[in-house]
């Protein structure tokens, strides 16, 4: 049904650029650095440089809203929204992804009898939201880069499509 291992078809690996700088001092920026640092083919720079890619996390904020009440009029569920606005530049400072934002959320039941435990759970969900946001940003970078290379790639002769998992490049 058309599924193939990701990265096998025409396209790019986990991160399309050899070197990258992540701008932003919030937790999602830290999570992005953390993820990128684990990819062996990517060099995470300590400072911006024009011939490296740039991921700028411009703002991130979390907001807690009441989702539902119980029979006593007390909160029974909270919804935590996590909003991240970010932009990505290709090496050479051309914009790959214009400034855009995403809004993710998680729900959790609240119990006023267990304030500390529920506060810890909320923190766990916020960390999960941050990882999800970082993963989606990286995902979008490779998707966008793949679309661009696919466009430029058609012009020259197509590279021979490799059959099995190639061990070298990726």
């Amino acid at each position: 049904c058309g599924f193939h291992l990701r990265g096998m078809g025409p396209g790019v690996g986990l991160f399309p650029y050899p070197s990258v700088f992540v701008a932003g001092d919030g937790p999602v920026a830290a999570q992005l650095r953390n993820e990128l640092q684990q990819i062996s083919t990517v060099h995470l720079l300590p400072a911006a440089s024009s011939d490296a890619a740039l991921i700028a996390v411009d703002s991130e904020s979390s907001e807690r809203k009441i989702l539902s009440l119980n029979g006593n009029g007390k909160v029974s569920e909270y919804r935590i929204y996590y909003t991240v606005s970010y932009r990505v530049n290709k090496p050479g400072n051309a914009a790959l992804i214009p400034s855009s934002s995403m809004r993710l959320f998680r729900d959790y039941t609240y119990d006023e009898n267990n304030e500390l435990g529920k506060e810890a759970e909320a923190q766990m969900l916020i960390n999960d939201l941050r990882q999800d946001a970082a993963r989606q940003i990286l995902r979008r970078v490779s998707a966008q880069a793949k679309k661009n290379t696919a466009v430029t790639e058609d012009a020259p002769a197509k590279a021979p499509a490799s059959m099995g998992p190639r061990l070298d490049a990726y």
Partner: protein
Amino acid sequence: EETPPESPIHLEADEAVAHSRTEAEAHGNVVIQRDTTEVRSEWAQYNSETDHLKAGDAVTMTREGDVLTGNSLDYYINANRGTLENPDYHVAQGVARADAVKLLFDGPDRYKMRTARFTTCPVGRDDWYLHASTLSLDYANNVGMAYNGWIQFYGVPILYSPWMNFPLSGNRQTGFLAPSVSFDNRNGIDLQTPFYWNIAPNYDATFYPRYLADRGTMLGAEFRYLQPSYSGQIRADRISDHKDEQDRYSIAFLHQQQLLPRLSMYAQVQKVSDDDYFNDFGDQVAAASQTNLPRELTFNYAGNGWSGLARWQRYQTLQSESDPVDIPYARLPQLYYASSPQWIKGANISITSEYVDFSHPTKVDGQRMWINPTITYPLVQRPYAFVKPKIGVHASYYSLNDSETVEGENSSRVLPTFSLDSGLIFERDDTFNGQAYTQTLEPRAYYVYIPYKDQSNLPNFDSALTDFSLAQIFSENRFSGNDRINDANQITLALTTRFFDGDTGEERFNATVGQRFYFQDQRVTLDAYEKPSTAQESDLLITFGGRLWRNFVANYALQYNLKEQVTARADAGIGWSPGEGRAFNLRYVVNRNVSPIIEQFDISGQWPLTRNWYGVARYNYSLKDSRSLEALAGLEYNAGCWALRLAAQRYINDDSDTDPDQEKYTVTYFAMLELGGLVGLGSNPVSTLRQSIPGYTDMLTTNSIR
């Protein structure tokens, strides 16, 4: 300051006479221009020595877009001083207009009108007028001032005030804010007349005199300060309540400060005089969510590669007779350290540790220390696959205080933890009616092994059983906090599919089905009296959600118990917002994991009814309690130069002084009349509507006067 160089005056007329070198007189369609000021009249006299212009019989003056007409003008052009008899004044862009007996030019960009009438309604519509003996419009400080003014709405005088001010543009000026009137069954009439005081660019204060028919007068004040390195606010309210015959007050203090480039401080104190304070005086959100009022002082230090936190925190817990609340432990102090050293390239090492001195009025308390180093090393990290083992140790040490019954003891717990996260990612590109998308198929397996350690003798300071969710089934410990670490020999299997927008690469939609399989009993429980679970598999978890098409969002989560064929939790919601002022939301949720069980459905929306009328509504019905938890209905009318909001809200509350058998509801009526950019009368339900109706947009934003 030195006046700018004057510019020449151009005069055009049918005929002109110069009586002297400096005095000219013109007749017949006279047009006089200087910079941006232009005067048209039948005749005009100008003395260039004194820069004094007289013009008559029918004068029209335009200045930076403002148009003033009158029947005789006496004006010193450069000094911007003078008078215009029975003026008719139209503000630039025709947003506001006024007429009066006399208009005084009072310096650049400042007008004063005697016995004036002011409105933002277009010519030909006399919906409302602000009458004033003196109306001053000061665009330099952008404040409008009306002295013994009264407001006439469709001919009916509805407000008198000896002194009233209103902003001419954006920022607020010292003066009375919109008085708010609401009515509810707790306090009867509830009249607030807030007064805003713009002390300095970075200090301001608001005073809240509030008259409650059934309880008396409450005085409140809020002071805010904003400095480059610190900011904060303090609010206090106090009333001698003659319904409950006691003094009641509330205090809320918030302060944050950047002490050093890497060290920041955050302080918060909330205190109320009695448990029912918010039920009687707060709005629905306050009454529902303010149960444990925090009092804390927190220091955060951000080192490079590590961070530290020191916090002193305790709570004031508002008890309710119907179901007493378990007071949270105070943490005096809590010291937390977290670092992720980059010792091994490609490995993710994290060292976290914490020391807390817990105290509690009744329960056992004492000190707890733990340290939890972990290392995650990705064996495979490919775009199509990942295998990531994670090993760690969780070592904790308790030193409990003596209590009356039992002598405090020390205990420790050291547990190795191991987990292996692995998954494959399959992908295909496809199009669906012309829209290109990428779909992935992601099988994932997550194995966790943590040996069993009896923790029934350990206190439970800050642990809770987390909700069964994707986040939980892919984490090592299903208990939050650090007092319970579940023994585990389990594997979580899940299959996720995601749909990515072909053009932007954004994730549009995802669906997951997952389940956890236990290879041994789960013996660690939150409380000693609970029996260990012998389940061999967890409930089945199915979730899907995202943007189905442009403005339609759907989310569904199901936690299904296969053995007993019972739904433990189901949560289905749709949100449709096809345009501004159009939103429709539907949600059903049943959750049997919590007690009391939640089962309710919620329908809310905002929809334009006719050209200017908008309807808003929300109905939240609890099937378990078979009664509505919140019912809200509202109408909003936008008449262009004024707007009306009407809303009624009935919500459940846990008010102790209503007799037990009677339904405990709070019913509040809002009525808000906003006279275009001038002043709003009545209580503003917008914040309530925004909380209750997702996707609500305020369609009645009236623009500023200039």
